[in-house]
């Protein structure tokens, strides 16, 4: 009886795993097919002939390595801003009482329900006035601003669950708010940063419309723009598109593998108030 149950659970998990991994495997196999076999009819799952030429082509055309570096820089810098501001915001809302607290928190949370595309024009005007047009900073501040509401929400939930008795002990020992924040709350909240990292990494890494809008200089482009350029007006070499997309997705997969053991602990962070 028990083994039947285990079997069912495993069967479901394996099925779920296969469904999740199928698109990636399909991408890989497509990228490995020579152009002539891409549209074979009837379609074949496993290529009868394999080639790395799509990867060479994707890596060699345009400035792919530079775009990868740009994407990394923009993502890392956005993260620095997001975590710096969100963690302090979340700490303030979690630990202090001040005038207008619930109203200002509601306004920040309101940012979650505005679709980012509707903000394109006002952001564009603002970024131009700030002189950040056609610069990577224009990407970083906007990505960070977009991610702050959700990250603050996530972190505040976790901070709230940390017992206030700790606050008192810190106070008794003569520590101030900064000590409490930097030496106690932040280290204890490590699991909450993991889901925040993964969710934000996906949105920042893949962002396309804003990067297309404000970056003119080809040397400052990010990966999604380069990937889009592999699609021609009339014809698209899908093998190269898939090879390029695979290269682009590697850092995200690495990040996930690195962080996954913390992921489950973190996703329930803030679900229940302690």
């Amino acid at each position: 009886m028990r083994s039947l149950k285990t079997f069912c659970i495993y069967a479901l998990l394996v099925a779920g795993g296969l469904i999740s991994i199928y698109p990636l495997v399909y991408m890989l196999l497509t990228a490995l097919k020579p152009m002539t076999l891409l549209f074979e009819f009837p379609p074949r799952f496993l290529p009868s002939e394999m080639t790395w030429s799509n990867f060479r082509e994707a890596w060699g055309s345009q400035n792919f390595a530079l775009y990868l570096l740009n994407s990394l820089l923009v993502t890392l810098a956005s993260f620095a801003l997001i975590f710096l501001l969100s963690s302090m915001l979340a700490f303030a809302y979690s630990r202090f009482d001040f005038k207008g607290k619930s109203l200002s928190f509601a306004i920040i949370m309101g940012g979650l329900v505005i679709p980012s595309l509707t903000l394109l024009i006002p952001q564009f005007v603002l970024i131009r006035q700030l002189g950040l047009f056609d610069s990577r900073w224009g990407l970083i501040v906007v990505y960070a601003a977009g991610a702050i509401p959700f990250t603050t929400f996530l972190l505040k939930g976790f901070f709230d669950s940390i017992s206030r008795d700790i606050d008192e002990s810190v106070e008794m020992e003569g520590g101030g708010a900064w000590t409490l924040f930097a030496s106690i709350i932040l280290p204890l909240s490590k699991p909450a940063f993991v889901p925040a990292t993964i969710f934000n990494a996906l949105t920042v890494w893949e962002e396309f419309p804003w990067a297309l809008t404000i970056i003119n200089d080809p040397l400052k482009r990010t990966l999604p723009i380069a990937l889009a350029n592999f699609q021609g007006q009339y014809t698209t070499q899908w093998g190269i598109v898939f090879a390029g997309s695979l290269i682009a997705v590697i850092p995200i997969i690495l990040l996930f593998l690195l962080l996954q053991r913390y992921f489950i602990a973190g996703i329930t962070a803030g679900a229940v108030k302690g």
Partner: protein
Amino acid sequence: MINKWSKLLPIILALTLVLAGCGSKGNQGTANETSSGAKPGKDVTLTFWHHYSTASPEEKTLKEVLIPKFEQENPGVKVNPVAFTWEDLHKKLQISGSAGDLPDVARLDIIWVPEFQKSGLLQELDAFEDFDEIAGSLLEGPLSTAKVGDHYYGLPLNTNTKVLFWNKEMLSQSGVEQAPATAEQFFEALGKIKSKYAKSWGFGEPALQGWNVLPWIWSNGGDVLSPDFTTAEGYLNSPASVDILTKLKDAYNAGQISGFKPGDVAVTEGHASGSYAMMAEGPWAVAQFQSQFPDFDVEMASFPAGSAGSIQVLGGEDIGIFSKDKQEESWKFVKFMVSEAAQIEMGKIGQIPVNLASMENADVKAIDYYPPFLEQLKTAKARPPVSAWPQIDGVINDAMSKIFMTDADVKTELDAAVSAIDALLKE
């Protein structure tokens, strides 16, 4: 744990600062470039936005052959090419136009010229002294696509149209020995192909925009707008338009036409691998067959003629100047791009030249797939040169999607499209 965090945060912050350095350096760079544009004796850098394909030899030829040649011939002028996709280039030009941050020169789809002229972004080229001389060296039809009102706002860069591609083996196996010359023969052939090849389609059409459906309507004697471009009433919903669209819809419902639905086999690749016996495509398809399907036997013929003849759509690109302060240098670059030498280089990789002299070049003449296109170009028709065309095209696309993919009535949908288009024309 405490140590880890306190170590990690400063590292990230330091990275941010490093980046700040990069960012501001980049800004200074562009500021210098623009200010040096006015100073004599220093290099002038022209920004050239284009949609030459990154995944084909086009962009390589531009960057590695044409631009170095131009820079060598014009010391002191540098060209910075920026590649976009066709769709993104249109959006970028619209956005940058409203922000006043345009490139100096851009390659433009011929259907964009009226739109950017109307928004006052394109410079008049006939103001340049030697304009008439240059214009006289170019093909007349493509040149007319750069004219709005009494002035020219660009020069043609390359031209194209579509012809009928047919799979000889599939057709002869189905009992059709020749490419269908008329629409009647075409629909007859579709039926024969379907009964021989149940899993294939007789004809593939990759989309339902004006570019795709107008040739059918035109060839059947219909049109989209009146000759003075003021209304669609009585043209897009004329009996001739309804008639041909009904026939196409019936063929689609009978499983004889496909290709525009999401998830369909891609048309050009599908044609080479036996999914679509026929398709209407441009010269780029031949280039694609040569590189990806070298064994495929490419056969081309004129587009099936209707009661009004075999009328395909005129495609191609113009080159226009946006720059206000580097006009002389920009004009030099435009002249270079339409010159015989540059047109020959692009002609060799499938961009049909518009320069009369380059058409006589031996290398260009040796391209055996150009003749059917040059023949089809004689009767090719341009899409209406109205500034609202991109929106009108959207209306057409929506109407056609409803006509083909739902059981909506053809005439009703066309009537609805006509009133939407007339409203756009009045704006």
